[in-house]
């Protein structure tokens, strides 16, 4: 019997029970669609994180304060108390060759309020050189000056989202806002940077380091120091310089360092591996729904085979070989899963055109043929058991079945 004939019989079999076929197809549709969509969401969020990090600029190096090492080496070697990261450290770093600017920074979460509206934002206290190092540009007004930092003026630059939350469309420049109860004068508003991953980079405020330490954080350790190298080519050298200067100043060994030096590319690789884990996790959840859809096929094909026992008996009596019966039911199952797969690809592609929980999904091209191929294999695999049962029926018994 020709494959075209087998296909025709299979199509007739599916058409005989349209609702059931449609519902079974739906299971595969959801499975394949969610594989494509969720992998695209994972991929999209990883790309937006990467974009945000690369917008930091390849020249920026961040020195983070950490609590210091507590590894087993600290008890056997000369133990050094973890020290604070200070502005003096920043000044020392500024002397190193290849360093364009150094911006010591503290950060804290604050409540901004203006009139009746208030907003929770992250406040950074730093020097004006922080803006170019972070690739921030001003949308309105101006930055504060080094002079204002030295004299601890109560001025603040708002992120675009913080500004619109407090002032709506009004121009905030020149207005006074309360930062956790302390009045600050708004001198500028940053241009919109967009979301980085799941958090907004625009719900921020930046003020002079001295003022923030004075009013809010106290004169403890800095959270980080942003160092801008003169060019991307010297970033690695400067990183080495920073490490040796701080090691010397803090009398640390690598094992129990109280700081961590990061640049955009190390951040990028950390973020990529996190995003990859996230994508794999989402894909695994979607794959489970595809598996459930496959079990749905087995279930419905078993019902179909039982229901059509008599028909199978008739077909065998008039000369259908076990192979032909097997082919017919396998083709039915595979058609179900492939139609579901094709519709699922369509649904997945349509779904990726929408923004989902703040993430713009980016389709992974490989996920489409992969999900579709897996759905076809699922039909073969999960249809195999019912089809085998049909093929193995004894014609005399099948004909007697009521």
């Amino acid at each position: 019997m020709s494959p075209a004939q087998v296909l025709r019989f299979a199509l007739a079999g599916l058409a005989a029970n349209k609702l059931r076929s449609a519902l079974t197809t739906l299971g595969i549709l959801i499975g394949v669609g969610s594989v494509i969509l969720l992998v695209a969401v994972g991929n999209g969020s990883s790309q937006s994180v990467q974009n945000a990090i690369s917008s930091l600029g390849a020249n920026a190096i961040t020195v983070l304060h950490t609590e210091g090492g507590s590894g087993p080496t600290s008890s056997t070697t000369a133990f050094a108390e973890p020290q604070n990261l200070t502005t003096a450290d920043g000044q020392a770093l500024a002397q190193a060759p290849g360093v364009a600017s150094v911006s010591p920074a503290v950060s804290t979460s604050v409540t901004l309020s203006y009139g009746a509206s208030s907003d929770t934002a992250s406040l950074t206290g730093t020097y004006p050189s922080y803006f170019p190092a972070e690739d921030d540009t001003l949308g309105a007004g101006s930055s504060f000056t080094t002079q204002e930092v030295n004299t601890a003026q109560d001025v603040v630059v708002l992120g675009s989202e913080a500004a619109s939350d407090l002032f709506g469309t009004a121009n905030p420049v020149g207005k006074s806002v309360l930062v956790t109860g302390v009045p600050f004068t708004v001198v500028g508003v940053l241009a919109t940077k967009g979301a980085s991953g799941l958090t907004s980079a625009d719900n921020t405020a930046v003020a002079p380091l001295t003022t923030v330490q004075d009013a809010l954080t106290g004169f403890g350790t800095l959270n980080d120091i942003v160092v801008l190298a003169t060019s991307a080519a010297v970033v690695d050298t400067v990183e080495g310089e920073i490490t040796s200067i701080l090691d010397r100043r803090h009398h640390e060994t690598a094992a129990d360092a109280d700081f961590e030096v990061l640049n955009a590319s190390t951040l990028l690789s950390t973020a990529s591996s996190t995003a990859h884990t996230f994508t794999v996790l989402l894909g695994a959840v979607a794959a489970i729904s595809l598996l459930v859809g496959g079990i749905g096929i087995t279930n419905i094909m078993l019902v179909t085979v039982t229901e059509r026992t008599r028909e199978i008996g008739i077909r065998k009596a008039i000369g259908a070989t076990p192979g032909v019966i097997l082919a017919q039911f396998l083709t039915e199952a595979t058609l179900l899963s492939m139609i579901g797969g094709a519709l699922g690809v369509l649904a997945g592609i349509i779904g990726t055109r929408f923004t989902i929980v703040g993430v713009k999904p980016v389709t992974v091209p490989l996920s489409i043929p992969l999900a579709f191929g897996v759905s076809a294999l699922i039909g073969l695999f999960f249809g195999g058991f019912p089809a085998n049962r049909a093929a193995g029926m004894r014609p005399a018994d099948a004909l007697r079945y009521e």
Partner: protein
Amino acid sequence: MTRPLPRRAAGPPPEADQPPAQPEPVIRLMSVVKTYGTGEAAVQALRGVTLDVVERDYVAVMGASGSGKSTMMNIIGCLDVPSEGQFLIDGIDTSSLDEQQLAVVRNRKIGFVFQAFNLIPRMTALANVELPLSYAGLRGAERRRRAEAALYLVGLAGRMHAQPQQLSGGQQQRVAVARALVTAPSLVLADEPTGNLDTRASHDLMDVLDRLNAAGRTIVLITHEADVAAHAKRVIGVQDGRIVADRRVIEPGALPPLLGQPVYGSVRP
């Protein structure tokens, strides 16, 4: 499914200058025993049946329910295999065949007519009749031509595109007959073919079977109705899994006894 069938069992070669006094049997059962179940629960449905049916014969197998006639029909139809003994169709020993080869034998050698019609629902009469030809691997145009000819033969040329549920019982059974003979089988096997039909449809159907036999088809008919058995050339009685009567009405080469007899109200196709 195109695996060749085993060659005919070695028999005496036909001698050219002798009259065909004893035609080769189409079916031959030799001490066939069929047992269902095992051990204590074993039931012998057939207890040693030996029977030859020759070409052009028209045999009615009669028996009450439980007599073993359905088991006999399953074995003759290659739907089941004997537990003991041998069954040969057209000289082919079925005990040596696997399920695949049995399917080919059913396709080429046997045409079934069942009591319950057993047409496949949602397929037109034509598609139902084409089905055995599909399994035989025939191409579309040839399949269609032969199926149309078979439907014409049973008087249903006008209802080819009707689905089974749109046909009367008598018409459905005639579609089944068309399907049984479309592959030009050695044997038409009819299991209580009039069991679900009214008197008039029964007469029409028996008329079709009579004419098929007159045209040279070998027919085995399983029934418990005496007036249906009256159409046959040979009547065999089965009881408790054994043949208890074997009555020859008329020679296999002759015309069927009731061929063309006017029956009140019958409609000639």
